[in-house]
């Protein structure tokens, strides 16, 4: 009896020490622990696949009992939404295409130029303390750790573990998720003024001026012509044409104050019950007040794991902080993270991550 107790005590000490050593190794990104994971995966996956087949009728019955009415309601709501959005989709698709053409013409990166792999969600996280899902594509499809994962609405998360035929995606609500983003604030309301030398202090509303009109008065008077183009769903841009004598080519100068202002920050997840937040936003006066509904897109850049301009969400609440610390923004993700089925993994790696030959 005493021998058995001593053996058990030794076993407990050995297992505790093993756990502590494994934690230390894994936190150092040791290849030994990832090797152990892979070996265990090889043994465990067939058992899991069999169990998935066996338990499928049980989960179907469960969902049939508890979710039937919700699915009916959702179906009705979605039909209505689809009908509303059908018209807008055509205009949006044309606008997106136009934007991509413009970006390509200017040699700027676009999402259209990045290959993607479509994957299906095959499992949720088994624990309550990690916001991950499993997809049915892995390293065999070219997926690597860190690649961004999207659905039709926007960014969903990033790849954190890759196996041969499956990968683990960390959702943007996971407290360990962080990504650099841009807050695209709406331009402030400004009034363009026509200033004459003789009466500079008197502002006047914007009035399109005939090209010849400026030449009729005092020769030193400065006038501007403002053309505003409004497209549904887009921030109007302003082109200012300085009045010039005919025969002289003009230069197009956008009004800086009327362009959409972007400020970078970092989005961080806070668990399933709380919305992700954006921190490190500058408190600059130029950036203006951030209103709810302002879109949040990925920042991109040589060190970011994601290409620029993937929609992440919209600002749902602005928490002002004292002093020079910028506000903290609460974000409503555009993707419905509770109901994911098909996803797109962008085969994108920043230059800093690419292995040198």
């Amino acid at each position: 009896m005493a021998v058995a107790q001593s053996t058990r005590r030794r076993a407990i000490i050995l297992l505790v020490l093993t756990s502590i050593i494994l934690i230390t190794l894994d936190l150092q990104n040791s290849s030994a622990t990832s090797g152990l994971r892979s070996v265990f995966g090889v043994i465990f996956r067939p058992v899991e696949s069999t169990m998935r087949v066996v338990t499928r009728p049980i989960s179907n019955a469960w969902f049939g009992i508890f979710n039937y009415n919700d699915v009916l309601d959702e179906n009705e709501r979605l039909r209505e939404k689809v009908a509303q959005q059908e018209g807008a989709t055509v205009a949006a698709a044309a606008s997106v295409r136009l934007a991509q053409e413009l970006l390509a013409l200017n040699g700027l990166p676009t999402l259209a130029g990045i290959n993607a792999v479509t994957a299906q969600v095959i499992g949720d996280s088994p624990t309550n303390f990690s916001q991950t899902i499993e997809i049915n594509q892995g390293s065999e499809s070219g997926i690597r750790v860190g690649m961004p994962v999207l659905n039709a609405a926007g960014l969903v998360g990033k790849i954190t573990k890759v196996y041969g035929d499956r990968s683990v995606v960390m959702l943007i609500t996971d407290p360990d998720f962080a990504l650099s983003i841009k807050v695209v604030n709406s331009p402030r309301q400004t009034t363009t003024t026509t200033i004459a030398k003789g009466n500079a202090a008197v502002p006047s509303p914007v009035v399109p001026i005939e090209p010849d009109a400026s030449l009729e008065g005092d020769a030193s008077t400065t006038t501007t012509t403002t053309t505003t183009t409004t497209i549904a769903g887009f921030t109007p841009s302003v082109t200012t044409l300085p009045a010039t004598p005919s025969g002289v080519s003009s230069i197009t100068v956008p009004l800086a104050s009327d362009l959409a202002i972007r400020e970078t920050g970092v989005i961080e997840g806070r668990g399933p019950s709380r919305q992700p937040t954006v921190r490190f936003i500058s408190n600059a006066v130029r950036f203006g007040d951030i209103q709810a509904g302002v879109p949040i897109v990925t920042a991109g850049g040589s060190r970011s794991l994601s290409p620029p301009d993937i929609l992440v969400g919209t600002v749902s609440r602005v928490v002002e902080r004292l002093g020079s610390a910028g506000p903290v923004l609460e974000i409503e993700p555009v993707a419905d993270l509770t109901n994911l089925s098909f996803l797109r993994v962008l085969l994108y790696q920043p230059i800093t991550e690419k292995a040198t030959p």
Partner: protein
Amino acid sequence: MIRFLTIMSSRWTRLVLVMLIVLSLQTTLFAELRPFGVAAQVVLLFVIVSGSINGVAIGSITGLIAGLMYDFILPTPVGLASLAMGLAGATAGLLLYFFHEPTWWMRLITVAIVSILGEIYFPLAQAIVGFDGWLQPRIFKVAIVVAACNLILAPLAIVVCRWTLAERKLSI
């Protein structure tokens, strides 16, 4: 050969094989069925039941082994669930320390209380190694739902656990 058969017929080998099935149930059925948005923790249930039946030593060894297997499929650092489950198994084993012959309802109360504690141990362990962010008021809801699910599943788990961890002599 006899040594190999002895090892294969030991309760620890049986535990590993049964844990593979329990773990596969955890990652498939119980990861999908989420009452109130919370996944029931059958691996934790198995560990707690083994502790409440066999005492602190067996409970903690079962917890450490089951947790280590769970670690290999979780995205958290390997060894974290092992320590948390080992602690949960040892906590459940304290029941036998205080009551030598506990009644069925004492065992069920133990399952409920240690389920709550065990579900808090894991985010605590995560916070200790720097993965903070999970210690939120939500863990109380999670712990209560997990305890309720474990109470419902406990009778079945007790039967399976008794069979798995029973000591049998190899007769050749």
